[in-house]
């Protein structure tokens, strides 16, 4: 119950301020968490079922009263909705997962402010339905996917990955998604396609951070085509088995676990295959500090701070950072013979 309430409050801060207020009020009015006997605690799944039942009941009543065109349920796309039919993945790590609360309140998403707490507070303004993702450029079959279609494109998998931020902290995050290669393969890249360029939504009305020129909006990232086709690179639509919260890059984001976190671009609207190496937003902002590859590498320091160690969120002692964030066995081959100090 306590955990449920904490989450309620935490999520309220993020996407549903009203719900958060409700929970806080609820908490004060009814009982202090310490007064609640274990026998009274509602099981998390049961709680969700009840809510789902109430929602459906409300909707079916409303259905009788409203014209059907108004019956779009925005909550279907909301964070917290359970994703169905998610498979396990052998690529998952069994390390202790970073709590949901931390994953969803400590975010770098400059479109919603440069403070790490801001995205959880401000990302409620992002509208994730309808949402289209265009796959275009040097491909034989360009296509614009509606997000619903993208969600059904390939089986969803749990992918528990380490995430290492360039700032020197890390998390273990259970993403839900499928390999990016599923999308690219279907588009049939042309022979001269060498790189993939990703672009985040640009809409300063929804993304207040874009009203300030902190970065050159929209946010752009890139991968080499073989990196993009690597089975570890995924498009994520979920977190902890549920629809991705807005502050984590809803409705769809990239996750490239062997690279620093900023490569894993959020709220993607365009995937473009190109011939020349794209210039990413951070390369443009500080070319000496952020390279195109940005592979996690403890031996290549950021010019202003060391990358040798990292603090896992929730832990006191720093731990050594692993080459390619511990995914060297799978991805080192992509960079055979390359000077990684030069191609940082």
């Amino acid at each position, binding site marked *: 119950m306590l955990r449920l309430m904490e989450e309620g409050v935490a999520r309220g801060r993020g996407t549903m301020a009203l719900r958060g207020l409700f929970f806080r009020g609820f908490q004060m009015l009814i009982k202090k968490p310490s007064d609640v006997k274990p026998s009274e605690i509602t099981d998390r799944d049961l709680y969700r079922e009840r809510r789902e039942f109430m929602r459906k009941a409300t909707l079916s009543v409303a259905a009788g009263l409203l014209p059907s065109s108004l019956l779009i349920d925005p909550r279907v796309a909301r964070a917290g909705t359970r994703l169905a039919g998610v498979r396990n993945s052998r690529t998952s790590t069994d390390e202790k997962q970073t709590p949901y*609360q931390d994953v969803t309140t400590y975010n770098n998403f400059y479109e919603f402010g*440069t403070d*790490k707490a801001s995205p959880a507070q401000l990302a409620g303004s992002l509208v994730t339905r309808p949402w289209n993702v265009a796959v275009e450029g040097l491909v034989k079959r360009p296509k614009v996917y509606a997000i619903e279609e993208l969600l059904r494109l390939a089986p969803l998998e749990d992918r528990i990955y380490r995430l290492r931020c360039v700032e020197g902290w890390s998390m273990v995050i259970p993403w839900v998604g499928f390999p990016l290669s599923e999308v690219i393969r279907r588009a049939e890249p042309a022979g001269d396609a060498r790189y993939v360029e990703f672009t985040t939504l640009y809409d300063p009305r929804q993304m207040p951070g874009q009203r300030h020129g*902190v970065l050159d909006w929209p946010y752009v990232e890139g991968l080499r085509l073989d990196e993009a086709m690597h089975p570890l690179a995924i498009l994520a639509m979920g977190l902890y088995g549920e629809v991705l919260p807005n502050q984590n890059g809803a409705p769809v984001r990239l996750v490239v676990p062997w690279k620093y976190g900023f490569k894993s671009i959020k709220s993607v609207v365009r995937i473009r295959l190109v011939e020349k190496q794209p210039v990413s937003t951070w390369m443009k902002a500080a070319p000496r500090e952020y390279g195109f590859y940005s592979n996690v590498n403890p031996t290549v320091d950021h010019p*202003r701070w*060391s990358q040798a160690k990292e*603090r896992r*969120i*929730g832990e006191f002692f*720093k731990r050594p950072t692993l080459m390619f964030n511990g995914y060297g066995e799978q991805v080192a081959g992509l960079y055979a013979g390359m000077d990684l100090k030069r191609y940082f």
Partner: protein
Amino acid sequence: MKTFTLLKTAVFLACLLPLLRLVWLGFAGGLGANPIEFVTHSTGTWTLACLLVTLSVTPLRRLSGWHWLVRLRRMLGLYAFFYACLHFVTYIWLDQFFDLHAIAKDVAKRPFITVGFAAFLLLIPLAVTSSNAATRRLGARRWQRLHRLVYLIATAGVVHYWWLVKKDITQPALYGAALAVLLGYRVVAALGKRRPSDFLGDPKPSRIRLGACRT
């Protein structure tokens, strides 16, 4: 006299609030996902804030005529040192956990840490010579010359912050602007003292003092 003691006590307690807030947040679990980063940033910004408040005593006193303000200055300066110590200890203990090798590398290799470390070292002689006895031993002139180091320290503090941030320099720029105003006031006052006739018109004794007691 009694009013001043009350006021001084109030300022003393107010300056403790940032620390009490951290302690309270620590117990309430309010330090966020990365508590050590939170404490490091908080103690750092409060060091800078205390330095700026200390540096604003002289301009405020000059502009308002409230000369009693200067009797708060030592305490404010020592609070800057206090928060700098907390900041430093957070880095050495919580962040690096006494990994002297890593710390030495950091200080040598990373400009923002080099500058911050230097600023902290420079604060030490000022804190040590803050007592009345030390002032007497040094003599007012030498004491004042030594304590002008605070201009350098505050500048280093702003640079330290500026070089730390990844991209959004709004915060360090605000501290930098405040510092520029406070130091700019002193530059103007000093120029005024050197050639009062050029800058202040008729050199009345009261105007001359404008620059005489700048610190």
